[in-house]
């Protein structure tokens, strides 16, 4: 029988083939290679679904790991193997479906956004999308950290190419460079982390009895012979450092504070690309990486606490900046940062399932919102300023309905998908936070971000779709076809229903079994399951759930708080902006407005740092010019001088040669004779 797992490499290779087709033959193909891309990603989607379902099978494997190619082996005492391989477990299978689904829909949407709008350079665009998707899929199936790193970098490269797609304008190339450099800064730490993992464990495998999370657990449990820690540190301390190094890459890619500044600028890319970056590929890569090696983080509670705190802080911090933005895509950009903050909070709080759940629901509703925004932008002739919109809901009902579904999900309103996942995150952070002040701090910030999220989301909805049209284009919007409405509808349905796959609160209240996602993620192979991680956390991290009163009251308090706050935020937005002629209320914020507009002067701060580095670089330059080059030049002149001396030895007179030869031999004989004591 043909097993689904045999086709895992094909999932990655299909988009890669579409990349090659678009790159080399895109010019000659209808739609600039879009159809090949759609076919490839749809094929990958079908294969991914098949793979995910076969994991559910009664007798089938729960986890599939296969080394495909060993490209380097260590020699001597260093039996390292650097390999490419695939690891399929419920987590990666779920992620494959998310990525391929969003990628397919983005390809379809691009027909409307790029082809129908008469953009040039389409083969380059579709080649970029294909490679982007292939890189992300390669990252998802990677079975070791080094391979993951390589595809992680490819993802970064593709984002650079796509954000800078319109390279003839001023903004996109600079935004692309910024995205590349800022994420590269984080990746630098990640690279050191990869090397550290190799040096510590001698392997970078994610799963199996010889994988580094398993070895880390053994080391923490007392068997320190399996690892080489550095600087004489205790295993836990060293693992925390390694974990934080890898986290550097995560913070960069998932746009967490303080490396989030590239993401709003990345809005300069085409809107479908933004959807792909935010929902399924680049930004998701960071969170996915933590989830992938969760067994390693589970034994270093300090790293987890830091993750949780960064996550909670980012969630709140980014949400406040989203409140004052004028462009529709900017609002969405800050909401992305904020939502990934929630996922990090969940990971830090020990809830691997909640993070994955939110990653999934967010992928659907954020892709929906971006594609919806893309539709609005088409309609508005590429004007993105929300203050020029208004009243679009009657002119574009499909977009409005789906956008509203996505917004309700983002705001976390019952029963849309975002409610279930966000509620689970906050609930988990709350119960574990009761015993851990750092986690509780993260929870408080996450909770405070809830009303702000609901507020800016609905400010956006009301400004865009409600009230009176505020410009000529808003009165006569541009139309669009099925290729825009189709993806919106699919995602709209998912944004509503995706939450139902893991209704934990309902299960706790009624006792009906509804936690399908939890069970699915718990069905993976040994060491990669949710309950396995929980056991590790309880044993090494001291994670212990607290309750207020009974479990049910705790649940009701947590859910009630977050839902209540979300509704409050929504109502405030309703009051302020759901009027025929909305006005800017930002002036009421006073000084704070400027700070928020300027994103807390983060960019200015980084520029300031960059200037300081410049002076350091100047010193380094001087050193390079003076010392290094001086040494190099010196060496070459000394060599040539020495060479001329050597040349002089060769006089051309055979008597000289005979003399030199004899003298040389005599010198050798004397030296070794005296050294060896031959003459005594």
């Amino acid at each position, binding site marked *: 029988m043909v097993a689904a797992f045999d086709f895992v490499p094909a999932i990655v290779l299909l988009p890669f083939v579409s990349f090659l087709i678009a790159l080399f033959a895109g010019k000659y193909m209808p739609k600039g290679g879009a159809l090949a891309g759609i076919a490839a990603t749809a094929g990958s989607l079908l294969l991914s679904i098949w793979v995910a379902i076969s994991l559910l099978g009664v007798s089938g494997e729960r986890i599939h790991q296969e080394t495909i190619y060993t490209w380097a082996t260590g020699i*001597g005492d260093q039996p390292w193997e650097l390999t490419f391989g695939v690891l399929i477990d419920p987590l990666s299978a779920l992620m494959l479906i998310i990525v391929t689904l969003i990628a397919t829909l983005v390809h379809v949407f691009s027909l409307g956004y790029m082809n129908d709008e008469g953009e040039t350079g389409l083969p380059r665009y579709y080649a970029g999308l294909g490679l982007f998707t292939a890189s992300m899929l390669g990252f998802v199936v990677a079975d070791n950290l080094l391979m993951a790193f390589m595809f992680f970098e490819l993802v970064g490269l593709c984002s650079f190419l796509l954000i800078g797609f319109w390279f003839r304008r001023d903004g996109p190339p600079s935004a692309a460079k910024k995205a590349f450099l800022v994420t590269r800064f984080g990746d630098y730490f990640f690279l050191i982390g990869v090397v550290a993992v190799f040096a510590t464990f001698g392997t970078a495998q994610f799963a199996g009895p010889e994988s580094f999370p398993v070895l880390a657990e053994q080391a923490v449990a007392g068997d320190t012979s399996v690892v080489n820690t550095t600087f004489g540190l205790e295993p836990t301390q060293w693992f925390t450092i390694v974990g934080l190094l890898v986290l550097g890459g995560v913070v960069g890619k998932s746009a967490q504070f303080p490396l989030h500044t590239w993401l709003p600028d990345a809005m300069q890319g085409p809107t479908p690309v933004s959807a792909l970056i935010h929902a399924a590929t680049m930004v998701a890569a960071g969170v996915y990486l933590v989830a992938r090696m969760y067994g390693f983080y589970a034994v270093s509670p300090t790293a987890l606490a830091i993750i949780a705190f960064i996550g909670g802080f980012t969630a709140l911090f980014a949400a406040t900046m989203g409140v004052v933005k004028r462009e529709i895509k900017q609002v969405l950009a800050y909401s992305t940062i904020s939502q990934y903050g929630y996922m990090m909070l969940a990971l830090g709080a020990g809830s691997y399932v909640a993070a994955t759940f939110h990653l999934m629901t967010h992928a659907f509703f954020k892709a929906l919102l971006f594609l919806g925004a893309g539709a609005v932008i088409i309609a508005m002739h590429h004007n993105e300023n929300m203050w020029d919109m208004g009243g679009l809901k009657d002119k574009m009902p499909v977009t409005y309905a789906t956008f509203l579904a996505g917004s309700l999900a983002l705001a976390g309103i019952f029963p849309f998908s975002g409610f279930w996942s966000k509620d689970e995150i906050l609930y988990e952070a709350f119960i574990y936070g009761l015993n851990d002040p750092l986690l509780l701090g993260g929870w408080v910030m996450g909770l405070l971000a809830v009303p702000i999220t609901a507020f800016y989301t609905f400010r956006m909805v009301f400004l865009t779709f409600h009230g009176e049209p505020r410009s000529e284009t808003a009165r006569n919007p541009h139309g669009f076809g099925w290729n825009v409405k189709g993806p919106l509808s699919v995602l709209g349905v998912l944004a509503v229903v995706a939450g139902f796959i893991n209704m934990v609160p309902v299960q706790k209240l009624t006792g009906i079994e509804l936690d399908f996602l939890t069970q699915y993620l718990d069905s993976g192979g040994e060491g990669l399951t949710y309950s396995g991680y929980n056991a590790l956390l309880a044993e090494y991290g001291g994670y212990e759930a607290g309750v207020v009163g009974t479990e049910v009251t705790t649940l009701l308090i947590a859910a009630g708080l977050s839902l209540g706050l979300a509704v409050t935020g929504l109502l405030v937005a309703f009051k302020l902006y759901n009027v025929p002629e909305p006005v800017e209320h930002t002036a009421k914020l006073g000084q704070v407005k400027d700070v928020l507009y300027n994103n807390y002067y983060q960019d200015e701060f980084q520029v300031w740092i960059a200037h300081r580095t410049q002076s350091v670089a100047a010193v380094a330059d001087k050193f390079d010019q003076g010392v290094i080059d001086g040494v190099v030049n010196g060496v*070459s002149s000394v*060599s*040539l001088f*020495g*060479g*001329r*001396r*050597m*040349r002089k*030895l*060769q006089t*051309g007179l*055979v008597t000289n*040669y*005979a003399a*030199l*030869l*004899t*003298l*040389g*031999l005599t010198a*050798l*004989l004397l030296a*070794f*004779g005296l*050294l*060896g*004591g*031959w*003459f005594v």
Partner: protein
Amino acid sequence: MDPTVVTTAALQSQLPEWTALGPVIVLGLTGLLLLTIDAIWPKRNANTTYAIVSAAGAIIALGITVWYLVAGTGQETHGGAITLFSEAIVVDGMALFFTAIFTSVAALVIVASHDYLKGHENSAEFYSLLMFATTGMALMAVSNSLVTVFVSLEMASLPSYALVGFLKKDRGSVEASLKYFLIGALSSAVFLFGISLIYAVTGSLLLTEISAQFADGGVAGFAGVAGIGVLMIAGGFAYKTASVPFHFWAPEAYEGAPAPVSAFLSSASKAAGFVVAFRVFAEAFMPLLEVTPAIDWALAFAVLAVLTMVVGNFAAATQENVKRMLAYSSIGHAGYALIGLAALTAGGPHNGDVMGAAMAHLLIYGFMNTGAFLFIAMVEYWGVGRTFEDYAGLSQKAPLACVAMAVFMFSLAGLPVFGGFFSKYALFASAVSAGFWWLAAVGAVTSALSLYYYSRVVKAIWIEEPNGNLDVIESKPTGLYAAIIFAAVATVLLLPGFPIALETAEAAASALFA
């Protein structure tokens, strides 16, 4: 004779044992055949006939050698080394490996000489001298006694002197020949004196018996005599391999000789010096390192290796004449190969690796260096000139040969895309693992320097514009072209084929230390 080694290889186990010397016999008979043909049909212009006969002889000898190597004759897997003539001769993996180098180089040089010798008188002499020199080298590879070592060494040297002076009317050629001969005579005297001292101490000339004597501590009290003997023998080998301070003949001889002869001497003759040095020191003198620390000949070779690498490469860097530059580069490469002796230690686990890597380097060097000198031969044939300026823009006239020349230069420098990289890498890596990181460091630094002068050639032929020097080029010498291209192909193919070559060489070398 040891009865255990009578059962020999699988393929030619039916053959009598003396057939193990087949390559040597074929080479010697070919030389005699050439003289016979010349005596019976003394035609003036039989250049082609002689070239075909001698090339056929070399290729048949090469074929037999490769067959034996593959079939396992004289190797560990098939009953070990075959000894003949009361152990004065030994045929083993190392002998066959080096015979393959000699015969390959000889075949290339013969094919190239056909064009070079067009119109010369007495071409039969040239080919027969070449065949006799090759016979001498093949005998050096199988020598197992200091007598056969000395005789075969002289047998290889004497035809070489005549070959260097083959252009009788060329002053440079004659002068070079005389210098070569005088230095050679001096070195032979030193070498012979060394042999007599060793005989005085051990009472034997057979390498195995010398080794046994040394292992028994038989030199107690005569360490000084033995030490001087060992160093003098080392001096004789240093002459043959053109190592400092016995190298003075090399730049003159290589520059003055006809370029195909330079190719032959700098590749095959050097390798011959190394095979006999490897065998004598690894077999006869190895126990000295263990038993008599006073005679640390490995350290002496280390000193020679460093001196040779430094002098060869530094002097090459300042040459204006391409042929002379190559002559010095060939001295530098002798320094690299000397690491194969210098990095040996008493009972060291890496001895086989180090020497095997040096052997593999000599194999690849055989092709790339021969090819480079043959390119010079072609330029001499055209009469273009000898300096870097004269080579400017050659690629416009002979692009294919210039591609090959670029391959040789970069491979000699050790750039990663060609065979020369792997052999240097294996050599330096094995030296490091044997604990001689400083030898590897000197090798790496001087290799980096060598890139400078090798790339000057490539720059001249590919980048610089011709300055009117190329108008003399009229014909395309087919034989020279074919030999150059073949050498280039071999240099490139030895990149993927290097593991096989290295494995064979290491197995052959390890057998010596077993």
